[in-house]
């Protein structure tokens, strides 16, 4: 029982990482009906930015928010420069563009920083804290705390502010929003900036465990896809809950299913994607797609 609780807590921490990246995917999906395959690489690049800042002696707690601001600006710039000219292109074109962007960013990071894994600092100690018989590392607690704060902040922004209201309206009803004076095109750019910043959080908090290198996010993005699909790709809340469920599931599968171990955890993530798409394609919180034909 004690080990079980410990695996669950570890899974929640991992889930917070997936949740942040999944939320980034959902934000862009909502804005454009498009899965941004470059989301993981954008997060990876942002993590390198954080690394560069920290290795120049800037404190972690200053480098972190600074990186998020830079990631926001970067995401905004990508939307304006790369995505906007092809905004009205068929969805397949956009998908290929985000795939190309992923390859480009991956190569760019390799070119600038090289492929040697680097250790990334964590502000939390790796020691554990005994809580009612369950040992939780400070690092896991830190990850849970940071992702909670970020997810809560996004929730407040989307649900409680006028900017969030116009972001949501522009995403779902661009034509009607324009007639209400919403700058739809800028809202899409802000959506990309926001997604980029939220995704960057996942990179920064996963880096101490995975070691930082250009391919760091490639498995994480699969889990994030699983989380987003499980929660319902249109639902921000679904992405968060999906992330936690996927985190806990793969942790438990790794611990209790001997054939899964550490090697087949990614397969569990993929199995979740396939199972959800077969059984409940709209996910836990998605609404059934209704289309007028």
């Amino acid at each position, binding site marked *: 029982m004690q080990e079980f609780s410990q695996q669950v807590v570890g899974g929640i921490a991992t889930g917070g990482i997936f949740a942040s990246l999944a939320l980034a995917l959902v934000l862009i999906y909502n804005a454009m009906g498009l899965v941004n395959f470059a989301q993981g690489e954008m997060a990876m690049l942002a993590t390198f930015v954080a690394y560069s800042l920290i290795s120049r002696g800037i404190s972690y707690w200053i480098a972190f928010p600074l990186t998020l601001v830079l990631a926001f600006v970067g995401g905004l710039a990508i939307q304006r420069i790369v995505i906007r000219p092809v905004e009205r292109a068929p969805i397949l074109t956009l998908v290929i563009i985000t795939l190309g962007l992923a390859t480009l960013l991956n190569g760019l990071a390799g070119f600038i920083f090289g492929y040697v894994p680097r250790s990334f600092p964590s502000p939390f100690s790796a020691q554990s804290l005994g809580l009612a018989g369950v040992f939780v590392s400070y690092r896991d607690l830190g990850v849970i705390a940071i992702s909670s704060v970020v997810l809560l902040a996004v929730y407040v922004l989307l649900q409680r502010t006028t900017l969030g*209201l116009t972001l*949501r309206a522009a995403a779902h009803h661009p*034509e009607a929003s324009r*007639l209400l004076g919403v700058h739809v095109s800028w809202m899409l750019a802000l959506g990309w900036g926001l997604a980029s910043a939220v995704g960057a959080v996942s990179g920064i908090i996963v880096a101490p465990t995975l070691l930082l290198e250009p391919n760091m996010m490639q498995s994480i993005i699969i889990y994030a896809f699983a989380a987003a699909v499980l929660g319902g790709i249109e639902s921000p809340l679904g992405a968060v809950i999906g992330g936690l469920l996927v985190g806990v599931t793969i942790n438990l599968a790794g611990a209790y299913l001997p054939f899964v171990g550490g090697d087949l955890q990614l397969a569990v993530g993929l199995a979740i994607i396939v199972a959800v798409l077969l059984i409940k394609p709209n996910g836990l919180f998605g609404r059934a797609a209704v289309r007028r034909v």
Partner: protein
Amino acid sequence: MAALLELEGVRAGYGPTSVLHGVSLSVPEAGVVSLLGANGAGKTTTLRAITGGVRWSGDIRFDGRSLHRMSTEAIVRHGVAHVPEGRGICTELTVDENLKLGAHRRHDKDGVKKDYARVFELFPVLKERRRLSASTLSGGEQQMLAIARGLLMKPRLMLLDEPSLGLAPLVVRSIFEVIKTINKDDGVAVLLVEQNARIALELSTTAYVLEVGRVALEGPSAQLQGADSVRRSYLGY
């Protein structure tokens, strides 16, 4: 009366297909004008041209200012509320959030508060349903919400695209009563696109009839209403 909105020889279309072949019309300050015609005559396209939803040539002036090359956001900010075909309700949002969107560009807090009170006085049902998702509203209630949201933009001109579409006659009556009130008491000018010519002509003072992208007929509503030949050939009742 000075014209608030003026269209002169407006041509517009979608890609290679042209829909309007030189439409001229005007809406006086605080007037009600109806724009009638069969399906595909170009009524909706005319409204879309006014708020910049479709490329056009010719001239459109609102309050003496040319709307040429102006973005939809800017046109709307100058006081044009466009309630589009199909109402444009954001069904993912609550009733209250939809209303908030209408007022989101305004900074006159007291004015907004007063307009909220006004809107709830005109449509008490919206007050009751404030917290519900807009998708739970009936068709008539959604039309009321769309008009209410337009009012919260504090417009000088309202463009209404088929407010009667798909609604029961009694509901249509009550919505047109409100449109009348908005015009009389709040001084908002209205350009009304309608299939339901009878009720549109009752409300408006002037009417234009579009036929395949051109103004085929124009005149005081009462006159159009009375002329049998006009009614039979253009208005279909």
